[in-house]
């Protein structure tokens, strides 16, 4: 089922956590709320769940106004970053909790819980206490617990944030597959752009309590609405007052139309990719040996680096490739996530 948040504002004292936020979550979608910490993503998720009442604005579930509906009656599954496992209950009882509250018959509960524990690969751990599980297992238990009541909407607040990199990757793929199987409308919060691009089919970029842009991962990467979205979704470097992706720069060994001279400061071979740190200001200022700090960088292939014989001290000429995405560099005051008029 779908969910709408319209013109939602939420303040904590003088801090504006959500500033007139409007977001639509289409039925069946897997949406990421992406942004830096303190940007309002978690607050928006909690408003959706009914855990936090908005100061103004409307929350709709399935087209009906749910703004004042308590969390108990929203039928929304919520997964917390730190699992919120019921510490005094076994894994089985944790997952059964929502069904027991709903007073379902015992054998139905047993069937459903067993099914869910198999789904999250915890069938062998039914009688364990949460303290005896690893972080990843606890989070899978929390997911099974949220799914047990067949929620209309599944909300996950930084679900993989407390896990180590390897487990995080596994759970990511697993969440994606789960969503493809169950088609439950899902919203998850993350500050990791790679995670959002990897898992979600829609991304809502938030910063300073406002929505910066909503779109598919490709749309956001290829057509960012502003400098903030562009720099948040992937690497960017600065060249002649422009923001540009470092892999969208062309490196030439001779001056050319639209190319800027730069001195190579450092060449780092990262496997297939070579990262070249450049000193543009230094190359412009003098012809002496370069000791200045790099102020831009490009990503080139190993072949290109070899062909151009790139090494520290060499002067090269750089320009954006044809059709590269560029954007005017924000001024100092705009730096913090202010949307640029587009």
């Amino acid at each position, binding site marked *: 089922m779908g969910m709408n948040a319209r013109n939602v504002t939420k303040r904590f004292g003088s801090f504006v956590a959500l500033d007139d936020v409007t977001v639509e979550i289409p039925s069946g979608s897997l949406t990421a709320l992406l942004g830096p910490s303190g940007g309002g993503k978690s607050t928006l998720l909690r408003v959706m769940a*009914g855990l936090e009442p908005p100061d103004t604005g409307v929350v709709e579930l399935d087209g009906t106004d749910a703004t004042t509906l308590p*969390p108990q*009656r929203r039928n*929304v599954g919520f997964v*917390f970053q730190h699992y919120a496992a019921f510490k*005094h209950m076994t894994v089985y009882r944790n997952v059964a*909790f929502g069904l027991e*509250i709903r007073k379902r018959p015992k054998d139905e509960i047993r069937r459903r819980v067993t099914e869910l524990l198999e789904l999250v690969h915890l069938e062998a751990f039914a009688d364990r206490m949460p303290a005896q599980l690893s972080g990843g297992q606890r989070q899978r238990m929390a997911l099974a*617990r949220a799914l*047990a009541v067949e929620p209309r909407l599944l909300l996950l607040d930084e679900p993989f944030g407390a896990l180590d990199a390897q487990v995080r990757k596994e759970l990511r793929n697993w969440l994606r597959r789960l969503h493809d199987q169950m088609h439950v409308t899902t919203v998850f919060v993350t500050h990791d752009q790679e995670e959002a691009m990897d898992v979600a089919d829609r991304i809502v970029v938030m910063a300073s309590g406002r929505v910066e842009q909503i779109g598919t991962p490709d749309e956001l990467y290829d057509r960012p609405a502003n400098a903030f979205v562009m720099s948040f979704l992937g690497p960017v470097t600065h060249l002649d007052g422009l923001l540009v992706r470092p892999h969208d720069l062309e490196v030439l060994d001779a001056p050319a139309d639209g190319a800027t001279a730069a001195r190579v400061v450092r060449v780092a071979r990262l496997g297939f990719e070579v990262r070249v740190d450049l000193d543009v200001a230094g190359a412009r200022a003098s012809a002496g040996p370069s000791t200045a700090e790099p102020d831009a960088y490009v990503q080139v292939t190993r072949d290109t680096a070899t062909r151009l014989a790139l090494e520290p001290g060499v002067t090269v000429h750089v320009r954006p490739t044809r059709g590269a995405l560029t954007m005017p560099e924000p001024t100092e005051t705009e730096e913090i996530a202010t949307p640029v008029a587009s």
Partner: protein
Amino acid sequence: MAEARSVGLPPTQSRWAFRLIALVYLAFLLIIPVGLIFWRTFENGIGPVWDALTSPDSVHAFQVTLIVAGTAVVLNTAFGLIASLLIVRHEFRGKSIFNKLIDLPLAVSPVVVGLALILVYGRNTSIGTWLGAHGINVIFALPGMIIATCFVSLPLVVRELVPVLEEVGDEQEQAAATLGASPFQIFRRITLPAIRWGLAYGVVLTLARSLGEFGAVAVVSGRIVGQTQTATLLVEQSFENFDTGKAYSVAFALAAVAILALLLMTFLRPRSDR
């Protein structure tokens, strides 16, 4: 660790010095006096102790103590739960004042509490007269003794529960809410089990404090033998009347109940929670 902390003295010496000081302090303050009471109690064997404890005034004093302490424990447990949930889970105006007021009984002398209660509920006050006209006597009667005991043991449950509630956090409660549990179900199935050992410890402390309360109850009760005499008051009266055998026996019984409650707590508590 010990080496790192002790500056100035050689590690082993300073460690022994600290241990000795702590032990001597405890010995003179606690171990020797309580040990002597136990010893003096059973000086002449178990027979006299049994006689002293089963005499009519002892039995009655224990009954009064049980009623007063039991009621105080029930009331303060309920109040402690509500107050600590308010302090930890809710924001309201005057919360810091509320928080400090709960600690007041620790600072005020119980005798002052007793006198204050007489000033409010005494026979010559308007409240006391009105209550008396409706057949309720507070002062020199059980209600006043219960109020006094409640007052002196007020902070114990709250002070045990507040840190536990803060540590447990409210995420489990929120998770239960999203799973459909009503506020009462959340309290019974999530909050209460999570804080049960803190609560139990608070109850035991309250019980121990209530059983042993002397000052406030002494002022409020009027010490009417066979009516408002509690076990602690009986100990003092017996002692003053040179009936040391009874004084020691009742004192021993009071101490034993308190120690038993503490031991019970320690053994019932799961190892991981200790």
